[in-house]
């Protein structure tokens, strides 16, 4: 059996002949944007929330990231966040809303609070729920009708997906991170390459990653169409969870730990599809187009679309036009206007530490505006405790307050039309960061390098100059 099979089978309430399975859901996260219609659906049917203690709420998508102590300026956003507060009070759901010390992006707070645990089924009305798979959980995004079903019954009707294994072996080069691994994979198999699949990531390169880096990988599983991605839990996982506010304690910890240690794919288990990747082949990556599959190494040239079937070339051309980029040219050296370091992909403390370590003693380019948006109040507090805020300030980077921010062009944080933004988020769709905004997805390190130089930069060259500097002194 695969890891996925083991968790799936433990959660089946019953199976419908020639139909889906009734899957029991352990943990349900909700936020202000995709839950209001689910609550009004309950109300219409006169239903209570079946298991309120298994749903956890936060406000993240539609919140400002400056002056969070003030009322939200825009009326509809204010009402939507107020609606969440009202619904949680009415139905007895724990809410880590604005002002709470646990507030933050839903996929950042679940893990950091120890709510996300191996072997669970986890859903949320958000496609990046796949993030939680990093703990060896079946975690996937759902629509609002399904949010209503989980609120009402703690179950969903789900057809079992096909399974893919992506094996990444070897050592990553300097300047190459988890974000580059996943952008490399998506560029290889396309934005639709894993549709219909759940993906398990294995291999020495995956095993060597921290939990936060594993979350970055699982987070973007959806960007190749996969329902979710997961990684078998190991000592790194257990170490991360231990002592978190909602982690099991005492005898319960020992019992859970014994169960978690059984969560792995049995040797010689067949997958529907397998993909092998050599970590040493992965370079710092960046996207040039309008879906996450349109990625190349930072040192690469923008393709001309001839690698695609003829009927897809018009869409390819349209993407380059939207981006204002030329086929056959280098992406390196492309001028940029904004850098956004944040989102459920890359806004955890390790991301902020990595950026701070790189920019210490450097300053942003005068042409670039740089936003650092921590993933949660806890990340923000930790960054300040470590003095990272001072590093960002002297580099001219603006440290904002937690939220989804400029990842999705919904709240106040938007990239203006026509402007280029190197972003550590997960989607480069047209208008994703604001109407007409042009997004280049990259790792925190590549984003930080671009912030300093003002152009798309191979961060490895900057290490080289730093190293040479050390040698001379």
């Amino acid at each position, binding site marked *: 059996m695969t890891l996925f099979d083991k968790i799936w089978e433990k959660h089946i*309430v*019953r199976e419908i002949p*020639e*139909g*889906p399975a*009734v899957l*029991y859901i352990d943990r349900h996260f909700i936020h202000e*944007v*995709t839950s*209001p*219609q689910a609550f*009004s*659906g309950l109300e219409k049917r006169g239903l209570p929330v*079946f298991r309120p203690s298994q749903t956890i709420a936060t406000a993240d*998508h*539609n919140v400002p990231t400056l002056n969070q102590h003030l009322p939200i300026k*825009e009326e*509809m*956003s204010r*009402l*939507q966040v107020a*609606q969440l507060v009202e619904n949680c009070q009415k139905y007895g759901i724990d809410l880590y809303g604005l002002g709470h010390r646990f507030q933050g992006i839903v996929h950042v707070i679940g893990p950091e609070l120890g709510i996300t645990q191996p072997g669970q089924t986890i859903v949320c*009305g958000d*496609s990046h729920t796949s993030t939680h798979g990093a703990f060896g959980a079946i975690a*996937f*995004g*759902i*629509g*609002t*009708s*399904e949010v*209503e*079903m989980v609120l*009402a*019954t*703690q*179950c*969903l*009707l789900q*057809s079992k997906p096909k399974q893919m294994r992506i094996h990444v072996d070897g050592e990553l080069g300097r300047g190459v991170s988890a974000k580059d691994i996943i952008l490399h994979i998506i560029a290889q198999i396309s*934005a*639709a390459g894993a*549709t219909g699949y759940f993906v398990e990531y294995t291999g020495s390169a995956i095993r060597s990653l921290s939990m936060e880096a594993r979350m970055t990988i699982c987070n973007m599983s959806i960007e190749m*169409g996969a*329902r979710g991605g997961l990684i078998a839990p190991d000592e790194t996982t257990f170490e991360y969870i231990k002592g978190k506010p909602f982690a099991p304690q005492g005898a319960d910890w020992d019992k859970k730990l014994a169960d978690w240690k059984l969560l792995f794919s049995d040797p010689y288990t067949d997958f529907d599809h397998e993909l092998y990747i050599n970590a040493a082949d992965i370079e710092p990556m960046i996207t040039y187009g309008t*879906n996450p599959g349109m990625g190349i190494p930072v040192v690469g040239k923008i393709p001309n679309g001839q690698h695609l079937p003829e*009927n*897809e070339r*018009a*869409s390819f051309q*349209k993407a380059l036009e939207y981006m204002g980029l030329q086929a056959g040219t280098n992406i390196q050296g492309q001028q940029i206007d904004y850098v956004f370091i944040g989102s459920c992909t890359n806004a955890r403390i390790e991301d902020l530490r990595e950026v701070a370590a790189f920019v210490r003693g450097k300053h942003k380019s005068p042409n670039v505006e740089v936003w650092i948006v921590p993933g949660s109040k806890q990340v923000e507090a930790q960054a300040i405790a470590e003095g990272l805020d001072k590093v960002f300030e002297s580099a001219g980077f603006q440290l904002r307050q937690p939220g989804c921010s400029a990842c*999705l*062009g*919904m709240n106040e944080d938007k990239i203006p039309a026509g402007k280029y933004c190197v972003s550590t988020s997960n*989607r480069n*769709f*047209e*208008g*994703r960061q604001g*109407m007409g905004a042009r997004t280049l997805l990259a790792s925190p390190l590549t984003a930080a390098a671009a912030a300093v130089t003002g152009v798309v930069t191979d961060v490895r060259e900057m290490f080289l100059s730093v190293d040479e500097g050390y040698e001379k002194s």
Partner: protein
Amino acid sequence: MSKKIKSFSTTAVPLDAENVDTDQIIPARFLKATSREGFGKNLFRDWRFQDGDEAKPKPGFVLNEPAFQGKVLVAGKNFGCGSSREHAAWALKDYGFDAVVSSFFADIFKNNALNNFLLPVQVSDGFLQKTMSAVQENPATKIAIDLENQTITVAGASEHFDINAYKKTCLLNGYDDLDYLLSIREDIEKFEKG
């Protein structure tokens, strides 16, 4: 929302693009509403209008061409990828579509569509291309979709499409998943006790 789908024949709107993501179907800035209604007017908002201005329709975008009308949207592969926002299905349905034809759909979108009685009809690449060309060349081309027999017919050519038997029964009879789940509450409670 009209419940129950059986068979229907209609003209179609051809949207010749692959990887149409849900941010295009309904941009995030329109997700602030707390009801399910009224999303149709913002369907494909930034492809339809210049600078987001309703007074400035973009010429050449298919929803702005009066020749193309109908209850079926024909689109390139990987339709509905990206965000899980069900607002995308609500917007398509509210605008007046009852089905989307593509060579494949993103998983979450497909579930959201089915939960809103918007039928995702998955056809082969070849059939999709023929359908797209037929509709583009002659906007009066009729698309006949028969859910009971799981067939789609365009310009004399037919193809079978897949849908699981449970979902088909739901769509034909107007049942939804929540009705079913509520009917097995006892089983769920028993499962919880282990």
